[in-house]
């Protein structure tokens, strides 16, 4: 314990403000908004942690990162040990440090939030992770001896990548099958560059490959291989194919030219780099007035993308009010700074087109908040006779995603719930022995950290399960 500060001195330190790109400039580029702490600021922020005996912050974290521990190691000047500690708990801290809803998880529990601002746990996590990515050689890697068991992971989103890394560390021979041409799942096709640089995901993927994980892209499980074939060829399966099926509004005019699902819009821009069109080959309609329907992170990413592509006006239409928006507070705040408009208590009832069937506007109805619904949020109800028209030439529908049935429909033995999500037990095992699942395909659209937590838990459960299985032939290893 080298740190010399007294608790009183710590309490005097103000939360360090994340350096950001200027709003006017960043509203027109795709570079990351948050610039990251310089060392000095990171160390001051780390000193703000009181090293609580009973750290509440840990309880708020879905994967129970030992937060005071890595922060303490930082204050001791041992950043390598801090990184080691963090990476033991969290396989992708460079990702979670950027996209976790910290304000409702670890930071909301932080004792320093009682009086003033909580410790910037996410910012510190990001700082340590970025250091670690650039200093791989200074980190020890432990790897169990080969077990001779082969495990296949379906999908390379955060859940699949985390499971693959953990399984490889436990000595298993791991293959990841990914349907798209680039690994990363939502981290590469959904979450935009300005929030999560693709370079970070690429480096994480390279690290896994260096650790022996084989990643094969362009393999669509359910088509290229059936789940049954995978069960025959591998000793265990982990399914983490996400919740990628876009939900549409089911209103007239939704198939007019200029209406996108958020998945299509973001995929064109992120995965296919349409923002570089015509230097990249995939186009995207830019639009002068882009209306994004929805109030979550996905809607926020889409509307901020529209702004960056050059839309004169980019607006959010949300059927409740700002208080009920599920998007992260930081994202809403950033969006406001970037000149995004918000229409609250607004629900589209029809997409209007011109004579050439291009979108020209959205007919909307005003809503009022009624009694709380099952989720505890006030239920929006339409106000009769309140129709009005929002002019726009591109509409992006960001009202949610569901389980994509491509894989599950080809394997009827796999037990699903009524939403089409795979049902698993406490170990993460599905109704098929040796087949595990986790992430959004089990939970429905959730968060990166929950998907990662599932991946890690399933990897350990797979390890235990495999250890209990007799080996088919002695030469199998």
């Amino acid at each position, binding site marked *: 314990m080298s740190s010399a500060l007294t608790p009183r001195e710590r309490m005097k330190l103000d939360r360090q403000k994340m350096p950001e790109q200027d709003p006017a400039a960043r509203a027109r580029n795709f570079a990351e908004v948050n610039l990251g702490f310089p060392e000095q600021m990171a160390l001051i922020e780390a000193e703000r942690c009181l090293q609580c005996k009973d750290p509440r912050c840990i309880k708020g974290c879905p994967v129970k990162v030992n937060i005071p521990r890595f922060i303490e190691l930082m204050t001791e000047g041992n950043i390598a040990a801090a990184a080691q500690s963090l990476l033991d708990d969290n396989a992708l801290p460079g990702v979670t440090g950027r996209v976790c809803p910290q304000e409702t998880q670890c930071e909301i529990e932080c004792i320093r939030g009682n009086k003033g601002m909580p410790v910037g746990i996410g910012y510190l996590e990001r700082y340590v992770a970025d250091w670690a990515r650039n200093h791989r050689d200074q980190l020890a890697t432990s790897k169990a001896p080969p077990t001779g068991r082969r495990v296949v992971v379906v999908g390379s989103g955060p859940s699949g990548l985390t499971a693959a890394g953990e399984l490889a560390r436990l000595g298993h021979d791991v293959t990841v099958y990914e349907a798209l041409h680039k690994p990363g799942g939502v981290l590469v096709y959904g979450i935009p560059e300005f929030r999560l640089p693709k370079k970070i995901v690429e480096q994480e993927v390279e690290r896994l490959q260096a650790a022996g994980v084989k990643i094969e892209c362009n393999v*669509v499980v359910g088509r290229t291989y059936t789940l049954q074939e995978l069960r025959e060829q591998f000793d265990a399966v982990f399914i983490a194919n996400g919740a*990628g099926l876009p939900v549409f509004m089911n209103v007239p005019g939704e*198939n007019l030219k200029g209406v996108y699902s958020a998945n299509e819009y973001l995929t064109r821009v992120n995965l296919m780099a349409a923002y570089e069109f015509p230097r990249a*080959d995939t*186009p995207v309609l830019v639009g002068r007035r882009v209306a994004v329907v929805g109030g979550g992170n996905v809607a926020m990413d889409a509307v901020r993308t529209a702004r960056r*592509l050059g839309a004169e006006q980019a607006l959010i239409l949300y059927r409740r009010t700002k208080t009920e928006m599920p998007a992260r507070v930081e994202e809403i705040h950033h969006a406001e700074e970037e000149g995004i408009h918000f229409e609250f208590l607004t629900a589209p009832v029809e997409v209007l087109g011109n004579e050439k069937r*291009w979108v020209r506007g959205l007919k909307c109805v005003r809503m009022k908040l009624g009694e709380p619904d099952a989720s505890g949020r006030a239920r929006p109800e339409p106000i009769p006779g309140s129709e009005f028209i929002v002019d726009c030439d591109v509409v992006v529908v960001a009202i949610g995603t569901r389980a994509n049935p491509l894989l599950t429909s080809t394997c009827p033995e796999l037990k699903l719930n009524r939403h089409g999500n795979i049902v698993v037990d406490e170990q993460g095992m599905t109704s098929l022995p040796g087949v595990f699942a986790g992430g959004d395909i089990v939970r429905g659209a959730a968060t990166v950290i929950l998907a990662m937590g599932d991946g890690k838990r399933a990897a350990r459960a797979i390890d235990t399960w495999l250890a209990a299985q007799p080996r088919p032939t002695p030469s199998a290893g």
Partner: protein
Amino acid sequence: MHRVVHRRQLSPNVTLLEVEAARIAQIRRPGQFVIVRLGGNAERIPLTIADAHPAAGTITLVIQAVGKSTRELVALQPGQAIQDIAGPLGHPTEQIDAGHAVCVGGGVGTAVVHPIAQGLHRKGVNVTSIIGGRSREWVIFEPELRALGDVIVCTDDGSYGRKGFVTDALKDLLTTVGADIVYAVGPVPMMRAVANLTRPLQVRTIVSLNPVMVDGTGMCGGCRVSVGAETRFACVDGPEFDGHLVDFDELMDRLGTYREFEQRAAQCADGPCRIGLAAPTAA
């Protein structure tokens, strides 16, 4: 990487490429397609699997050069490679087990009809193919289809086979011989005309739709088409549908999304944009 092992020019703008894709060659079935991506920042392009050689581990793609991506693909020479090929995607063709099937192919659609005819022929179904092109040099896959049954060739200018559209030949055939099922693949107006012809005759008609696609896995919804009262995703629910239920006008219109975009972009480039869509920002 998927090496091109063979290349053949079939008509002035249609090229056949045989490329390595061992797994797909083994398991593909008629009616399925792949998504290919040349590399770098290239687009994902859906292409039907026209044929497969499981022993050689190759599939055959027949590509009409219409835009940048397809032009780059057809320029590939043997030895060069395609970076990504995903598949086989979509549902295999619904096939009949006996009787008479008519396969109608227009332009590059003839290559798509070929594996369907092949599959039917293997099952012992009696196959008649009606294929067409602008003029003689645009007619493709005639010898391959002749090996599977009768072939009626139509050209717009009469330079080869019958003069006129494939629908004229189909009409004659339906009124004389009749058919248990019709498969039609080609330009949207052709498929619409075929469906309009067979609907009153109540001859089951399967069409293969070609909306703009991105992922091909049901993730983006860009390929949505209206079939009956329902919205379907062509990449996972199709690409083949009951031609009598398809909203061809909507499909045709949606296919124009980026065509108009490019024209508009060109217009917008030399002045203030009056039409509502700004030019893409040159990042």
